[in-house]
């Protein structure tokens, strides 16, 4: 069964949309800002790539965004951009499946929930923040926004959240439960996550690799339909596990997650584009789909020694404890089926 990537959407430190992500790929990075995090021992500066979800106004009236937190707004924006990129924004989404991955969930809203208890006492717990703190809130919000009545799934597996969720999306399509899935990942650089990054040296296992801290959302529309529009690429494989990771075979390999001995020496990290975030594997997938799309002017940096653009890209994620996720993408002119 052929599973195609019909469109991609992303918001992160590089900007908003496939065009901005393509530009960042060509430039090789995004300038990071310095975030000053208060600690008891004084301020600690961390490099950060922040996302701006304000372009959501183009898809959702501001009035309807009043109760959306930053986490949900990034989710909705990237998802709408993916549908727009696929030319599917106005389609009937009644049979659309939604799969969202997040390493830590809406930590900003979780902190706001706890703040409401700290400031007002137990009886003043905020019901809005409580509902918003649930990990599946953004997926639910997407389903409501789009009228998507197919299955909805949210996965939280730290670094491997996105590969694990992608495997589920692929299974739904292969098993014919749905014929389109909006798949994506989202994570935010809340006060709490920034603070943990500032003290990452004191954690047993820091939440994510070193490098500028990132946030944002990246989505793809996956399909098994006979779509009218030419796809970006084909999703050939999506697996996870904890045995030895399968060898990457593609011409180009993107690596996210932890730095591990034994990682493919050819592997490239795109952390400079969108920062270190558990959502990185979904950003890698979006970046790979952009590079494989027909007509893409592949930046020289991603061409092989003979100057050829890649026909296949593997996105590999390692969690540093033996776990891996691997997604294999192919251009429509290369491998198929």
């Amino acid at each position, binding site marked *: 069964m052929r599973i195609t990537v019909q469109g991609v959407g992303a918001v992160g430190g590089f900007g908003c949309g496939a065009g901005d992500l393509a530009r960042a790929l060509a430039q090789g990075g995004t300038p990071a800002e310095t975030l000053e995090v208060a600690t008891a021992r004084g301020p600690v500066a961390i490099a950060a790539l922040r996302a701006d979800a304000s372009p959501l106004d183009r898809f959702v009236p501001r009035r309807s965004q009043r109760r959306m937190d930053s986490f949900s707004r990034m989710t909705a924006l990237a998802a709408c951009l993916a549908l727009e990129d696929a030319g599917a924004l106005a389609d009937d989404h009644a049979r659309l499946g939604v799969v969202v991955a997040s390493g830590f*969930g809406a930590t900003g809203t979780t902190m706001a929930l706890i703040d409401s208890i*700290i400031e007002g006492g137990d009886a003043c717990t905020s019901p809005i923040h*409580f509902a918003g703190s*649930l990990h599946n809130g953004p997926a639910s919000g997407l389903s*409501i926004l789009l*009228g998507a009545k197919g299955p909805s799934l949210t996965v939280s597996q*730290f670094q491997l959240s996105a590969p*694990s969720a992608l*495997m589920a999306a692929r299974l739904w399509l292969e098993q014919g439960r749905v014929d389109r899935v909006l798949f994506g990942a989202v994570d935010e650089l809340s006060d709490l996550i920034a603070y943990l990054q500032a003290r990452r040296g004191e954690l047993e296992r820091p939440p994510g690799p070193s490098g500028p801290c990132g946030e944002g959302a990246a989505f793809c529309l996956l399909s098994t339909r006979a779509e009218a529009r030419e796809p970006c690429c084909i999703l050939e494989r999506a697996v996870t596990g904890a045995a030895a990771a399968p060898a990457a075979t593609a011409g180009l390999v993107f690596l996210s997650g932890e730095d591990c001995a034994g990682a493919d020496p050819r592997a490239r990290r795109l952390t400079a584009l969108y920062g270190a975030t558990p959502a990185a594997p979904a950003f890698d997938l979006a970046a790979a789909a952009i590079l494989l799309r027909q007509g893409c002017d592949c930046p020289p940096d991603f061409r092989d020694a003979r100057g050829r653009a890649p026909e296949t890209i593997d996105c590999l994620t390692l969690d540093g404890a033996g776990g891996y996720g691997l997604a294999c993408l192919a251009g429509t002119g290369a491998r198929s089926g």
Partner: protein
Amino acid sequence: MTAGAVPISGLGCICAAGATLDACMESMFLGRRDPRPPRRFSTTHPLAYPVFEVPDFEGPPELLRTAALLLRAAGEALADAGLDRAGLEGLRVGACIGTTVGSAMNNEPFCRAFRSGADPAMEPMDRILRSNPAAVLARAFGLTGPCQTIVNACSSGTDAVGLGASWIQAGLCDLVLAGGADELGRITYNGFISMRISAPGPCSPFDRDREGLNLGEGAAVLVLEAPEQLRRRQRRARAHVLGYGSSCDAYHPTAPSPDGAGLERAIGEAMAAAGLAPSAIAFVNAHGTSTPDNDRVEGQTLARLLPGVPFLSTKGFTGHTLGAAGAIEAAFTVASLERGRIPASAGFRTADPDLGAEPVRENTPVRAAAALSQSLAFGGNNAVLALGLGDRP
């Protein structure tokens, strides 16, 4: 039984109703339940809303209670399946676990200290980062297959069993530890009270005078095993996952769609996958939270789709165990099929004329070999499992 049926070779469960699945079944058939004000944490609410805590259970300090409960249930399930860590070596074993609380960065003392400008010790965050439920199982039992923690709110456990079964069907795994786990905590307790859906007394699912839910905690694990793997071990299936269906209402962040259309789609998908007609359904283990909205939608939908099929809610015995509920109730469903009877729906006294159906009032014999277990969740998620008896003597 359809070709896609996935054998269940072991079951384990711990919740307020009992420390093992057998203990839970025994106490439910005896009609025992003991909701009390929380003992493991204190609150400043003027009213002590009752909960169902797991008594006499302490996990290792390095793990969240959610993970510790899960490990206990997994140990029972693997023993029931005749397996241990050594027996899993060389097999492609996955972990698919549902939870809600067990994956949130919500340690209250840490956050209080952080907000006050102190630098709290990092141990609470380390504990959260090492307690991802599916990862805990993978680590404890040396699993090498897919590892997935599902956070679909209150349908997480049902979704985890359904998706775990799909890994077997797709040939990704020889065996999957599927289930759910969640612990009780102050933040969740406060959150449900703030939403005005916690009952001031013992919950009464589907009752006319129901006032809301009681929270609970616990875990359950189902050992799902590929048929050929089960044959290799010369074991019999205790039960089967016959079908799974899920849908989203796309209606409201916290309220179910009043027309029950999403639940109807999930029931339809599960029954179609299982190849079951309504007459083949022995009973339905309903979500039955005892909130006015949930029970109205669920009761009306069951009355419309499965008229005359007995149904019950076991939350009157366990409380609402959130991400664990679907797995616990799937285990209860299998154990009830094996016993040929279902417990009385605890807390139910007076029929609600608005529902068009009522749950069983007494322990009730059932005859057919298949049943449904269903969950509804915040976010409008609906998930349904069709479960059938196995051939284990």
